[in-house]
């Protein structure tokens, strides 16, 4: 059994009541609504959910990378990192945090590197900004970093341009840039979604190894439940801007409490003879629009255990003694009826 972080130690990142709103053509929307979680040193926390659930906005809020013109982090939000509140920190303060103490890698390895600069230059740039190393040392460190992310011939690769590298290689370079200042936290936003499965395996393996070597905490944002099962210690499930369940990866996969988590897990195609060619259990309907959120539970419309109470009132996030939390009046283990697999295909 994998140790789920160090629950008793002080978390290095503590997010409390994070709320981020966007101004859109159709009015104000709350993309992330009252999200709270902790990340401890050396653990991997997965944030899963379908598109539009707010997982990427959560990560960009922590990095304060959202466009200020259209977005606003609620002043009551707290993103505590090393005794400072990133939600209200000044931009110059954020610049020293970004890349140095919290680093981020993105989904698109094709567009996250600047095509007109050599690989080495792009790693050295980050080092120049955040460290006092001289030129020769920076070059030395860049080569070390490329070697660390298992790029063959780093001495030669360092003077190549991004277009000369494959997608997997570019993602390795991105990881090298992210890790060159030995950050406390690495935020990986769908790092393998754009990659082929054999390359995904390489990158996941690499991240796992680096985490052990450098004791970096990883916040992994993904919609791929297989990736979560493979690398995460703890998981947050998000739905329509809310955290609807959190717990250890084992709890989430084997004893989900929220009907959404359960349904999501069931809808993945299974291997094996028994399941072959069978209809998959599905979640009827679609995710509600952030412009027209229901008054009650946001999942109520699609929930197979829905009661009147769910439609009228939104449940609070209930934290249990064993470190789990869920946002449901009728969690699976206390459900009023046995789960019926399947459901209508017809969207509402």
């Amino acid at each position, binding site marked *: 059994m994998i140790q789920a972080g160090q629950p008793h130690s002080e978390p290095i990142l503590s997010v409390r009541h994070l709320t981020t709103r966007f101004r859109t053509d159709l009015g104000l929307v709350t993309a992330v609504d009252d999200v709270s979680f902790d990340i401890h040193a050396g653990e991997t926390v997965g944030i899963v959910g379908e598109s539009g659930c707010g997982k990427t906005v959560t990560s960009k809020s922590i990095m304060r990378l959202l466009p200020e013109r259209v977005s606003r982090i609620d002043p009551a939000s707290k993103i505590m990192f090393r005794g400072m509140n990133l939600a209200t920190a000044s931009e110059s303060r954020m610049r020293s945090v970004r890349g140095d103490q919290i680093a981020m890698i993105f989904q698109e390895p094709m567009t996250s590197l600047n095509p007109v600069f050599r690989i080495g230059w792009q790693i050295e740039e980050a080092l120049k900004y955040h460290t006092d190393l001289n030129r020769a040392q920076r070059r030395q460190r860049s080569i070390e970093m490329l070697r660390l992310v298992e790029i063959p011939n780093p001495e030669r690769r360092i003077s190549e341009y991004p277009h000369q590298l494959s997608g997997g290689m570019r993602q390795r370079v991105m990881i090298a840039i992210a890790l060159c200042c030995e950050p406390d936290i690495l935020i990986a936003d769908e790092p393998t979604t754009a990659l082929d499965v054999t390359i995904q395996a390489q990158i996941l393996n690499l991240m796992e190894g680096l985490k052990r070597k450098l004791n970096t905490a990883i916040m992994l944002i993904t919609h791929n439940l297989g990736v979560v099962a493979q690398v995460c210690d703890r998981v947050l499930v998000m739905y329509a801007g809310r955290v609807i369940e959190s717990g250890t990866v084992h709890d989430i996969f084997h004893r989900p409490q929220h009907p959404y988590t359960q349904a999501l897990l069931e809808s993945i195609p299974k291997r094996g003879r028994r399941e072959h060619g069978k209809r998959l259990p599905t979640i009827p309907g679609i995710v509600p629009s952030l412009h027209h959120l229901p008054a009650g539970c946001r999942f109520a419309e699609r929930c197979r255990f829905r009661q009147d109470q769910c439609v009228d009132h939104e449940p609070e996030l209930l934290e249990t003694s064993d470190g789990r939390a869920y946002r449901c009046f009728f969690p699976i283990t206390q459900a009023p009826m046995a789960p019926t697999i399947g459901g209508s295909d017809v*969207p509402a």
Partner: protein
Amino acid sequence: MSLLEVRHLVKHFPVRGGVLNRVVGHVHAVNDVSFDVRKGETLGIVGESGCGKSTLGKMLIRLIEPTSGTITYEGQDITALSHSQMMPLRRTMQIIFQDPYSSLNPRLTVRSLLKEAIAFHRIVARNEMDDYITELIRRVGLRADAADKFPHEFSGGQRQRIGIARALATKPEFIVADEPVSALDVSIQAQVLNLLMDLKDEFGLTLVFISHDLKVIQHFCDRVMVMYLGHAVETLPCLELDEQVRHPYSKALLGANPIDDPDQRRPLTILQGDVPSPFHMPAGCPFIGRCPDVIDRCRAEMPPIVEREPGHRVACWVANEDVAEPAAPAKSLG
């Protein structure tokens, strides 16, 4: 019985370059691929980006012209047909695309985009048109009032249903589904897969299902063909995939996919290196650059496709060592 017989299909895309825009080489997208699709079955084609699976799928319905080889559909070689001779066959062969956004013309309502296909092939009489469209829309799980909406008013999953309705509109027998669920969220992916499964049974469709996700193929298809760099390296029934898989690349694909269960965590199979560009094909086996157990013969010669057991065909020197004599090329490649 085979509905479709593909023999030695090849597609090379010319690559132009230089000042004079001369052809400087070819991308070998599909290299000498042969297979059969039986009536009523679902054949999965799996492989990584650039392996030629999508090009192959589009060649099957002649959206892309093959460089050489034959595609025989119900006894008729469709690669030799002219545009007008192809017309009646177009009705019976359809395609579903990956991207639910770029696959629907943003300026046409659902009704008009279905109507043009139905009217073109005279599927139903003019006065039955509206009923037929309503029925079609309902059948793919949309509400009847969806007919007069524009694509941008739908979500990704609903758009994919519209794409399916368009493919079904002409009452086809054979459909190529090119990554139909790759762009969708997990829960929506399940809805669309279920729909395809139901429609397949209801209309007796024959499907070629292209995907990069072996898990989806394994669940959904009868047989799977694994492609690597334009070559079909292994073909076998999906039910035997876990136990019988022989080709090192197919094994790697299986092993690189994380299992959706934290209790069954295992080290992922790691293939060294990257997928080579189909512009510079290695001599010998296309997989030598990444293969964990290469022997000298792999570098020198392209391994022949050997039918190890009925329905299980592998192209690998090492995996086929236990088969003494390469079996004579079978008449049917089913």
